[in-house]
């Protein structure tokens, strides 16, 4: 569009409005519910190792989610969030990335982290905010992060990671730009993957992040998890457009909508998106459609805001569907799988028992990392606190015994 207003140039002399839903956006689905490919589907030719890695990740997350939900009910952890229903969306999209592509997630994407190799112990240490937690026990359960695994630590304020992902991705592109032409001189090594919910997509940060990515051609994949709810707020009280995908054209971003309970469709779409993005630098928007099968978090009970009928009509389990695919392919032995699942569940319970007994972080960690090194006033506050605790050790049992 080579005119100052940056708009298309066709002129019309007739007064007519563009319809509120003028775009026709399909949902891409490849796998039937019985685990066979739709007859006319593009076969993504997934390899056996990747497929099994996806499957085992999903199975792990399901087991972890069930265990931790129960643990919260027992009062052993304060809070938990399950991924129920969205395991394929998260896992298969992460599988389509390179393992060193940065992931900037919202909070319900523990499966992507697991896919990268976050250990059972690491999950547990975070949730029990003990001294082994990489985050030093500072955030609520499920706020994971790992520099080593290129998984940005989760931040509770919604939407903030969206423009951050744009800036992060842009920075990865800079070394590939030929300063004289302004063009890419080589394929970009990494994309940045940005997950968010359809609720968070209402934040102003969403608008800024997508618009800037389009204008500056930042290699970022925006992965919108439309699971129908933001806590109690249903999608039709969240937006009036056709999902999140209908927004892509407003930013000039190539967009695709996928069945988020279909691991193959998610995998194929994300792989293609990544390939496009590293070649051109341009961002891609993917909207995944899957129903939040569980509660928002352990703090809520969806029976207060959604009907039994609706829940009964939406029970599509992405793990079961993918399992059928693997069985059809002959890549999985069901009996062995069941046995592994059994063992896994025991391991999880044991890891929980270990992690809940590990002591909390030391007092130093109350003030470290506010700055790269503590500023003088904070150091003084800390020294005074140490004296106070030494004077009243019985009141601060968690740290008193360990103060130097």
């Amino acid at each position, binding site marked *: 569009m080579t005119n100052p207003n940056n708009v298309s140039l066709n002129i019309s002399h007739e007064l007519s409005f563009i319809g509120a839903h003028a775009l026709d956006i399909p949902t891409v689905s490849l796998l039937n519910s019985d685990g066979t490919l739709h007859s006319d589907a593009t076969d993504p030719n997934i390899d056996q190792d990747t497929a099994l890695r996806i499957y085992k990740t999903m199975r792990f997350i399901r087991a972890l989610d069930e265990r931790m939900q129960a643990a919260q009910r027992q009062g052993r952890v304060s809070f938990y969030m399950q991924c129920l229903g969205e395991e394929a969306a998260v896992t298969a999209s992460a599988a389509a990335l390179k393992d060193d592509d940065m992931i900037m997630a919202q909070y319900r994407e523990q499966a992507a982290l697991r896919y990268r190799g976050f250990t059972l112990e690491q999950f547990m240490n975070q949730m029990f905010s003990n001294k082994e937690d990489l985050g030093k026990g500072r955030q*609520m359960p499920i706020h994971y992060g790992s520099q080593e695994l290129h998984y940005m630590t989760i931040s*509770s304020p919604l939407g903030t990671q969206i423009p951050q992902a744009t800036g992060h991705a842009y920075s990865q592109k800079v070394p590939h730009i030929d300063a004289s032409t302004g063009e890419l001189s080589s394929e970009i090594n990494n994309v940045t993957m940005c997950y968010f919910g359809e609720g968070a997509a209402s934040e102003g940060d969403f608008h800024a992040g997508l618009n800037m990515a389009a204008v500056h051609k930042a290699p970022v994949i925006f992965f919108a998890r439309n699971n129908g709810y933001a806590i*109690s*707020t249903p999608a039709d009280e969240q937006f009036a457009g056709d999902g999140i995908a209908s927004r892509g054209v407003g930013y000039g971003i190539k967009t695709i909508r996928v069945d988020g309970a279909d691991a193959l469709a998610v995998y194929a779409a994300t792989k293609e998106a990544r390939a496009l993005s590293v070649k051109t630098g341009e961002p891609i928007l993917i909207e995944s459609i899957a129903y939040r099968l569980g509660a928002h978090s352990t703090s809520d009970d969806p029976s207060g*805001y959604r009907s039994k009928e609706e829940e009964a009509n939406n029970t599509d389990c992405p793990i079961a569907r993918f399992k059928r695919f693997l069985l059809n392919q002959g890549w999985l032995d069901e009996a062995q799988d069941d046995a592994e699942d059994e063992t896994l569940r025991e391991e999880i319970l044991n890891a929980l028992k270990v992690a809940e007994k590990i002591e909390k972080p030391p007092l130093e960690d109350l003030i470290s990392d506010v700055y790269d090194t503590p500023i003088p006033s904070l150091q003084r506050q800390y020294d005074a606190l140490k004296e106070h605790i030494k004077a009243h050790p019985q009141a601060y049992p*968690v*740290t008193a015994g360990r103060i130097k």
Partner: protein
Amino acid sequence: MPQMNMLQAINSALDISMSEHPLACIFGEDVGHFGGVFRATSGLQEKFGKHRVFNTPLTEQGILGFANGMAAAGAPAIAEIQFADYIFPAFDQIVNESAKFRYRSGNEFNVGKLTIRTPYGGGIAGGLYHSQSPEAYFAHTPGLKLVVPRNAYQAKGLLRACIKDDNPVIFFEPKRLYRASVGEVPEGDFEIPLGKAEVVSQGSDVTVLAWGAQMEIIEQAAKMAKSEGISVEVIDLRSILPWDVETIAQSVRKTGRLVISHEAPITNGFGAEIAATIQEECFLHLESPITRVCGLDTPYPLALEKEYIPDALKVLSAIKNSVHF
């Protein structure tokens, strides 16, 4: 009088306000059918209709922008921000718009009918983003009023006054006390005036001042001090803007000493303003430096929350240091 917890008291104030004005609306994330994540708006959508009590999309800047526009149209706009930690995306709409609306227009327009309700504060294992006490961020903003209740009774009377006041007001609700604070609260309408502190208990040796959930802590410290022979005058500031300099100054002129306590980090918290003003007002009466017992200058932590918070023991030590200076 019936017993109510703070949530019930707030709900009752909202109910009365909605009945009072046919254009009044309540809105925010999840406040509709669900009644809010803490259930403060429970039952109100059923009573007043989906067009007057409704969920908004998830955008705090939008909620406040929408609220400013509604208030400018002359309708009571009662906006909820789900957690005070999430009020910052709305900072521009509050600080640059709500606060300056009347002034910049020469009173051609105003958003006096705006009330923002938001749960704040720690002590609930919420970590960085479910624990903040951001009142001081707003206290530097002429045009706003800021109010914090300490219990159910105060919550109802003050919230009614906020909604009826013809200026934009932020009402910070101490979420730790939502269910914990239970007491007698009149069923009917009543108001507690804004801008007035309350001397909760009289004393002669030292004045101790706080607001909101922190009142419980200083009252506990005052009791401990009493058993050590120190007589504490306990004051609830209640309104941060405008704040009641006179009541505090009068008390400090009597006791000669002041301890201020708040949950937020100490540096440039509202305690700073109080200390700065009172050292000037009471210079010749002060027998020891004004002391602040506050959160440390760190983000709000999780595992070491107990160490972080300005608890009764820390307030007690400050009281003793002040008295024995």
